[in-house]
């Protein structure tokens, strides 16, 4: 009989047996979206892949983009939680479960994209009966299989003690299937010393094993593209570039999932600002690495100017793909600014008048109007008629200055609202990463050799299946956290024990460097040590 404290029980266990109206409404909406997606998919099977926007030469389109995107999201969890576990980052405890759940479900959704994309989904088993190891698609099958099984296990292991806890603390009114489920999940967990030691050992082993597997998954996905001889894809940097992008977008998804779960399940006492702050540092690092790779990839193409590669780069920089390319860059830069600049802002500055949300709003409106006037077709004539003296360059400057002012004046607000900041940055990064995949797949597809360049627009079918995929992801996520606690109960409690012990041990100050020593001595002489 395992016991749990009253507060933990109220916040973590009890909500599992309650479901409000919002929960059912959400499920209903998700089911409707998925139903629509299913309808569109059946329609696609009946009529053929011609109902999508794909054509010759754009043989791959949005399905492939989504495939890479979702598998990328799946790197949120397992990889991050494994790295944090291996490095013994204590603050990871409340968020590992959410992260690992993202992995498992994003992998399911990502794999489904392959079914969407196949011309003959009925023959998918041929991948096994006739699978040829030379094809990178098989490499993918090998590494995704390992990753999927591994992350399911990695998600399951820490659930065991929690399931036993649930089994032992089941309320009277709980339906019998729950009793069976938890009994089954707990797998005879008694919580004696031997079991704990064995469980911890296995978790430690899995955490180490899962890291190379996760890296292999996205590397292999990038090799699907990089092993072909197509211009723009045949690049050695793709492996690490994709892995970095995957982790980057994965953290973005994790932030959003964390925030929503925290709010929906009232986990404010568990998932605190600390988690957001520390994960935010990793986020900033990934962002910097992402910029580095993006620059490396495009700069080499620009400098080489190969006859086949350069038109593709040009189509991204100023051609038909400039919109998606620059929106991606803008989103990523904005995410970086939102993440980093508030950290640089001295606290004392917030007394200045310009740091005021109303000022931000005003500037944003001005910048928005200026951009609309500049970008929306036909608007330029309106401008010319209204005020003949206003050349576009003035408008551009106005847009730029107002935009910069809007961002600057927003900084103290961002600094005060850490969690909202992270959500904003994550949303920007998710959009940017999806566009990045798009900018890799589609421009190469529509600019083939020996053919005039063409264009690719996804149809309603592709958008519907995208929406349905997202809905399926949320659906699984929401249901899952009605079955198991969103926070790993035993890990959090273990963390409390460790914190307690820590607070009792007087920690020696770290050895100061010689230059810092003098300053420290002086300050020590001025103030009495507090311990």
């Amino acid at each position, binding site marked *: 009989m395992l016991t*749990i404290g009253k507060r933990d029980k109220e916040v973590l266990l009890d909500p599992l047996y309650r479901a409000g109206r919002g929960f059912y409404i959400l499920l209903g909406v998700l089911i409707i979206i998925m139903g629509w997606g299913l309808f569109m998919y059946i329609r696609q099977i009946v009529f053929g892949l011609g109902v999508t926007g794909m054509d010759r030469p754009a043989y791959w389109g949005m399905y492939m983009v989504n495939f890479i995107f979702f598998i990328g999201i799946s790197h949120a969890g397992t990889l991050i939680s494994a790295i944090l576990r291996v490095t013994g980052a204590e603050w990871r405890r409340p968020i590992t479960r959410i992260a690992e759940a993202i992995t498992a479900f994003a992998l399911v959704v990502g794999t489904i994209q392959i079914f969407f994309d196949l011309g003959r989904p009925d023959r998918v088993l041929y991948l096994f009966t006739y*699978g040829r190891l030379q094809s990178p698609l098989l490499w993918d099958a090998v590494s995704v299989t390992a990753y999927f099984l591994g992350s399911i296990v990695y998600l399951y292991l820490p659930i065991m003690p929690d399931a036993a*806890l649930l089994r032992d603390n089941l309320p009277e009114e709980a339906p019998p299937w729950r009793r069976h489920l938890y009994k089954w999940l707990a797998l005879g967990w008694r919580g004696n*010393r031997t079991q704990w030691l064995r469980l911890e050992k296995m978790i430690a082993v899995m955490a180490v094993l899962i890291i190379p597997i996760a890296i292999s998954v996205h590397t292999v996905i990038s090799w699907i593209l990089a092993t072909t001889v197509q211009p723009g894809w045949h690049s050695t940097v793709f492996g690490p570039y994709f892995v970095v992008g995957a982790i980057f977008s994965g953290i973005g998804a994790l932030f959003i999932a964390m925030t929503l779960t925290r709010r929906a399940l009232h986990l404010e006492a568990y998932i605190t600002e600390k988690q957001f702050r520390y994960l935010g540092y990793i986020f900033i690092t990934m962002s910097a690495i992402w910029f580095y790779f993006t620059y490396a990839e495009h700069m080499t193409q620009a400098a080489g100017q190969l006859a086949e590669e350069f038109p593709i780069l040009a189509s991204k920089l100023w051609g038909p793909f400039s919109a998606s390319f620059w929106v991606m860059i803008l989103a990523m830069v904005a995410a970086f600014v939102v993440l980093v600049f508030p950290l640089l802002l001295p606290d004392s500055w917030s007394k200045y008048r310009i740091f005021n949300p109303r000022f931000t709003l005003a500037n944003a409106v001005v910048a928005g109007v200026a951009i609309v006037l500049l970008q929306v077709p036909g608007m330029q004539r309106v401008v010319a008629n209204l005020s003949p003296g206003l050349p576009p360059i003035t408008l551009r400057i106005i847009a730029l200055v107002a935009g910069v002012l809007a961002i600057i004046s927003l900084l103290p607000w961002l600094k005060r609202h850490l969690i909202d900041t992270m959500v904003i940055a994550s949303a920007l990064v998710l959009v940017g990463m999806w566009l990045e995949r798009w900018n890799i797949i589609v421009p190469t597809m529509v600019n083939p050799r020996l053919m005039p360049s063409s264009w690719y627009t996804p149809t309603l079918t592709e958008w519907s299946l995208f929406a349905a995929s997202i809905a399926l992801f949320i659906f699984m996520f929401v249901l899952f956290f009605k079955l198991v606690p969103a926070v790993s109960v035993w890990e959090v409690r273990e963390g409390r024990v*460790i914190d307690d012990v820590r607070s009792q041990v007087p920690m020696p100050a770290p050895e100061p460097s010689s230059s810092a020593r003098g300053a420290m001595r002086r300050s020590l002489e001025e103030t009495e040590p507090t311990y």
Partner: protein
Amino acid sequence: MNFPMDNPFFQFLYWIMNTPGIGGIVVVVEATLIVIAVSLSLRWINKGADAPEKEQFAYPTSALHHYKPKRRGFGGL
């Protein structure tokens, strides 16, 4: 210089790469191995419940880890 493709070893490697069905076998073998390894480990954990120990821990406390003093000082605490 041409790649020594007439070398039987490389021919064997190419056969592995190029024969339909081998990929499927590899995936199935891999999945089976993982499932077996995981099941065995889970059984190992499950069997841990039979150890003649009275105490039960809902979560790892210091009491649990005092049992193995070697583990202290690194990682755990």
